[in-house]
């Protein structure tokens, strides 16, 4: 009997607290309105583009990479930071420690509440972010996607590192050169649903049907999940499953570094070719010790730099995201928006023994 009475009291006390909480949560609405009015003064998106409009002072631009503490995004967001400091804005980087779409949604929601001026996001899923991004846009926040796009109707512009076509083709061309035009190859990709990697792999598959690649046989696609350990093991697995393997393409910086590390300390060093997308700093020792001849990448620093300028141009009204509009991106010069609001950074760079020391990222 005492037990049920105790429960009753504890239940009543709990209820009282819950009601208080609910009341306090509702009481805050007025702040919401204030925020809206303070950020509503920007001359943004809806109007005509004015290419001569100056970049506004003190723009708050936040980078939301797929994952924080990922070396690739650290570099690209660093480029963004440099650009933001050039035009006197406020830079911030936030993001999840696991590369999932749902955790990015939570960050987008947060940024919407904080009322930043622009979000530059690399999407973990082309659709899952849409609701949150459109909510942000209706709160007058400019949305730039970089590296990985969302559906075109969920962002203002997409800063593309290079077209899928050029990225896929350069990797295939490099591996073909390195294995002498014939033999078995495999791909070590990121996660099975990584937007970029899958698009590139599709292009590679198409490309392999061409006569110049008739003697090259793509035997397997392994997924290292952009995890160093897993990529290392998958490389090991590929080499033991396919004793005749001549080359590996790893279109992801985590994958290629792990694969290179495995190859450099194995009997396959110098015998099995490795190329793909890597950063010069990660790959330097493997290029110098002969494990890797050549690999490719766009300059992620420039990518972030361009994304930041695109964001500033949007907020300042220089562009609205319509094809044909142009804007100046600091020391990168002028860029033109292409169909679907895409801005292309440029062709990828090929790194080898000769030029790798010219790059530091």
């Amino acid at each position, binding site marked *: 009997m005492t037990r049920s009475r105790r429960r009753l009291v504890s239940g009543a006390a709990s209820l009282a607290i819950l009601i208080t909480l609910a009341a306090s*949560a509702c009481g805050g609405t007025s702040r919401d309105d204030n925020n809206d009015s303070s950020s509503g003064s920007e001359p943004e998106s809806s109007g005509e583009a004015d290419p001569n409009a100056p970049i506004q002072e003190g723009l708050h631009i936040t980078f939301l990479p797929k994952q924080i503490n990922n070396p690739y995004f650290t570099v690209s967001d660093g480029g963004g930071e440099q650009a933001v400091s050039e035009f006197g804005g406020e830079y911030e980087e936030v993001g999840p420690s696991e590369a999932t779409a749902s955790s990015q949604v939570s960050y987008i929601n947060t940024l919407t509440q904080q009322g930043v001026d622009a979000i530059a996001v690399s999407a973990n899923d082309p659709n899952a972010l849409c609701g949150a991004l459109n909510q942000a846009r209706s709160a007058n926040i400019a949305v730039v996607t970089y590296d990985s796009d969302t559906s075109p109707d969920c962002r203002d512009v997409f800063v593309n590192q290079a077209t899928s076509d050029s990225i896929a083709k350069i990797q295939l061309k490099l591996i073909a050169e390195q294995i002498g035009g014939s033999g078995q190859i495999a791909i070590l990709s990121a996660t099975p649903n990584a937007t970029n990697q899958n698009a590139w792999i599709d292009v590679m598959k198409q490309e392999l049907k061409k006569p110049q690649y008739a003697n090259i046989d793509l035997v397997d696609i392994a997924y290292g999940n952009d995890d160093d350990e897993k990529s290392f093991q998958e490389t090991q697995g590929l080499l033991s499953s396919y004793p005749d393997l001549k080359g590996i393409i790893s279109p992801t910086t985590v994958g290629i570094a792990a694969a290179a590390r495995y190859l450099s300390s194995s009997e396959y060093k110098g015998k099995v070719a490795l190329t793909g997308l890597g950063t010069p700093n990660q790959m330097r020792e493997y290029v110098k010790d002969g494990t890797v001849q050549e690999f490719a990448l766009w300059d992620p620093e420039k990518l972030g730099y361009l994304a930041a300028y695109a964001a500033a141009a949007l907020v300042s009204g220089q562009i609205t995201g319509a094809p044909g509009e142009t804007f100046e991106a600091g020391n990168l010069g002028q860029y033109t928006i292409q169909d679907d609001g895409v801005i292309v950074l440029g062709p990828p760079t090929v790194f080898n023994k000769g030029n790798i020391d010219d790059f530091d990222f």
Partner: protein
Amino acid sequence: MVPEQRTDRRSLSKSPLWAAMTSWDFALLVILAVVLAAATSRVEDFAQTITLTFLLLDVVPVALMATGLTLVIITGEIDLSVASTLGLTSAVLGQLWYSGYTLELALVLCVVLGALLGALNGLFVAGLGLPSLAVTIGTLALYRGLAYVILGDRAVADFPFDWTTRAVDTIGNTGVPTAVVPVIGLAILFGITLHATPIGRGLFAIGNNDATARFSGISVGWMKFWTFVASGVMSSLAGIFWTFRYASARADNGYGLELAVVAAVLLGGVSIFGGRGDLLGVLTAVVLIATLQRTLQLARYSDEVLNLVTGSLLILSVVVPNVIAMIRAWWARRRAIDDSVPPPEHHDRRVLEGTNT
């Protein structure tokens, strides 16, 4: 048992108010209130209606899974496959819709699937007597793997607009998502079953000592089996919600979420050894964790800090009750010596006492 002349101190400790004040649920609510008060006054942008919306949308799937998992843990078992069940349901829902099934039929099939996935766990644990930790780690990998087999690297995203908006709709201007209503309904159903029916008493009895429970005529195997089915169904509902909320059916939906769910259940005062806990505490813990995360994020703390806080809460929720129990035991011994009376018996599981009784 209790002697006639009691000291003031002891009568205070016996009063219902005191019991309520020291109950774990109450402590959680106080912590939640403190966090909310601090967030409202100190964290810029927290005090908005939209905070409530975002927060509760994050709460819904975890609350669903935690509600089902509570039953399982109270019987002394565990189900680590909840998030994988979510992912598999999402993948199947996407595939069914993609193959032209109506959503209504697809939803029914998904709930049935959840029941079957739970039943498979139940079969291994209750039927074959295998340890649930091992079984559900296995199905954690198995169900996630199946999700990838079904959907691979694809994402199905072309769900009808009215379904995806319904998932994130709010009740009028309150900011409370409509999805919260069925969650509360289910929580009440589970709460009543657990705390006010013979079934619930049976579950606690099993968790306290399943040999004793068996001898007192409780069909331990079947009851455990059904708790796994319930957990599977709740996880599939979470999977359905997740799919519509993010308008994206993919195999990696809810990846790694089982940790958050287990953390919430344990922080909610459910003993990992079974036999102790209640649903109100669990749901409070779910809201508390979500609030902390939302607050820290708004206050611009990084993801690592969020993980550190969640992890520490989990450890604390296991350590604190045990430390309190040790202090109480020591205190009771001291008093027994001082007063030369036997220490009062502890039989109220709602009062803070950590050890598995």
